């Protein structure tokens, strides 16, 4: 019991929560934006992988870190356009198209990575983002180390959650996106272009996913290796349901989830030998499934999610 309290009292835990949450926040917001417009984007896992690779590679080739994030975002947007082409223009199954995008983006990122970076004993590294020092706040005892010792993309992620909430619920554009996800026919009748709105949302959402992936290689770690995304994309998809398609709750969900993850990581070192470490590693995935089961029926799903829209064809 004392060990648990020690973990909860350590500044390292709370710093880790924000760090672990960051890619999930980006990914969840991206998936949420796509789904609000009516498109399930299972390309997320592959897009995050590609973002991780592309961002890292750009920096490795000499770009600065922010340019790296931008490169990742652009690549994500391209894969988003691919997914939108398959699901919006052609109206194909969003499930299968998304998986296809994931398989393609992930394998392509491994291929390009190997092509550009020859095999070496130790993987090459870049200098990642350094924590931002905030005057006064970062110097506070405990709180400074626990909360105010993060890299810039973490603050960007939190800011984005607020910005996305504003866009979706306070602007005409957000209303148009939500209407497209609820009833594209109605959006069309009001002179909006559901196809363009869906393309825009999927491209922007995919760019966010890729930035989440790039955070892994440019801030959390400093190198790229295959399978490093480790199902984070799928967890984001679960978090969107958990958050009932609301950005604020998505932020909270990601933080809550990251808390459990950070906690189990520390618990592992304390309880070493008592339980196989794999049990701890399973926790995030099982938590996601539990969250889905609890929330799935209560959540107000966008009514046109996964329904293709083509003008003149009634759905």
């Amino acid at each position: 019991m004392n060990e648990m309290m020690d973990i909860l009292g350590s500044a390292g835990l709370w710093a880790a929560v924000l760090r672990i949450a960051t890619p999930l926040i980006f990914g969840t917001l991206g998936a949420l934006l796509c789904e609000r417009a009516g498109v399930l984007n299972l390309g997320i896992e592959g897009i995050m992988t590609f973002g991780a690779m592309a961002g890292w590679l750009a920096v490795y080739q000499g770009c600065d870190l922010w340019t790296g994030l931008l490169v990742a975002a652009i690549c994500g947007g391209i894969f988003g356009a691919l997914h939108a082409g398959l699901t919006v223009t052609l109206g194909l199954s969003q499930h299968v198209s998304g998986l296809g995008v994931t398989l393609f983006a992930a394998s392509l990122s491994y291929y390009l990575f190997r092509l550009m970076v020859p095999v070496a004993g130790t993987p090459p590294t870049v200098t990642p983002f350094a924590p931002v020092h905030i005057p006064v706040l970062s110097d506070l005892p405990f709180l400074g180390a626990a909360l105010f010792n993060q890299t810039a993309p973490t603050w960007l992620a939190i800011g984005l959650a607020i910005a996305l909430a504003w866009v979706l619920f306070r602007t005409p554009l957000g209303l148009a996106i939500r209407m497209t996800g609820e009833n594209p026919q109605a959006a069309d009748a009001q002179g909006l272009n559901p196809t363009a709105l869906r393309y825009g949302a999927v491209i922007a959402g995919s760019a966010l996913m890729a930035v989440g992936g790039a955070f892994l290689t440019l801030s959390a770690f400093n190198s790229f290796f295959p399978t490093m995304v480790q199902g984070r994309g799928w967890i984001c998809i679960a978090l969107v349901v958990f958050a009932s398609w609301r950005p604020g709750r998505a932020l909270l969900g990601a933080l809550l989830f990251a808390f459990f993850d950070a906690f189990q990581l520390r618990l592992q070192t304390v309880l070493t030998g008592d339980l196989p470490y794999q049990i701890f590693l399973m926790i995030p995935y099982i938590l996601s499934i539990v969250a889905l089961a609890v929330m799935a029926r209560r959540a107000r799903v966008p009514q046109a999610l996964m329904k293709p829209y083509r003008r003149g064809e009634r759905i």
Partner: protein
Amino acid sequence: MRLEPRDHLPPWLALATPLIAVAAALALAGGLIALAGAPVLRAYGLIVTEAFGSRLAATETLTRAIPLILTGLAAAVAFRARLWNIGAEGQLYLGAVAAVTVSSLLIPDWPPIVQIPVLLVAGAAAGMVLLLLPLWLRLRFQVDEVVTTLLLNFVAVLFVSMLIDTVLKDPMAFGWPQSLPISDNGMLPRLVARSRLHVGLVIAVALALVVWFVQARTTFGLQSRAAGLSPGGAVFAGVPLGRTLVLVAMISGGLAGLAGAVEVMGVKGYVTTDLSPGYGYSGIVVAMLAGLNPLGVVAAALFTAMMYVGADGMSRAMGIPTYIADVTVALSLLSMLVALFFTRYRIRR
């Protein structure tokens, strides 16, 4: 210019669709090969010779096709009933570890004639269990099974890794993380001497025939198709939706579990956490290339196996990254999706 639904699909087009898709995927992959600075046409040639150019290569390709046929069938059966089982990878691992557990810990001395069927059943049962859980969540809580089956893949592999570290740890492996071996009585006989090709190929092809027959000719096949195409129409016609989906899940999960059991009983003899290079996910590609037709699955699995074995050999010979095989397989899925669109619609001016 506008799109118009096709009334019916000429048979030649149905057959040509996957071929066109594969050709498009190979052309796109050619661009990536060229990017690596390798001569594209020679690379294509090498893929074929590396996959089928020698007796060893051909048997290796066929060996690779075995788990792909089984996971492809698993996906085809499920997708036809609109059950999105993306968890074949996890089901495969559980099937493999079930076969190893039963063989090494429970019945190592049983004769092959009894032991082999028991192990196959154990593997299939393990796969079923792992798919019935997400199905239950869908029927009970309306949870989309895509995400749950995906997440369970990670849980399953971690579970296998845990077993390998503990109760199934092989003391003779010098600390390598691998499981106890399957007893010799539980190994599948070789089909061709001095190769890895085993009886699993016969099992897989036979199962493809059985699944095709069940889908095309039985009342269950008709009902599960109706359930997939229109749940509302199926319920109105008295199709027991829940029971049909449970049966579909058992067949699909069972086939994926069987893929794991057959792989471990036919090739390796023990389980590691890299037993499968993504057979579960490739099964989805195989099923889609086959147009969800069980007989087409055999052909599509052969193509995919050829890509893996052939492109692997080619990339080694030409010094380009071996991931080209995965890229090509993923591209053929995407091309197939686009091609499928044009089997349903035609462009009219």
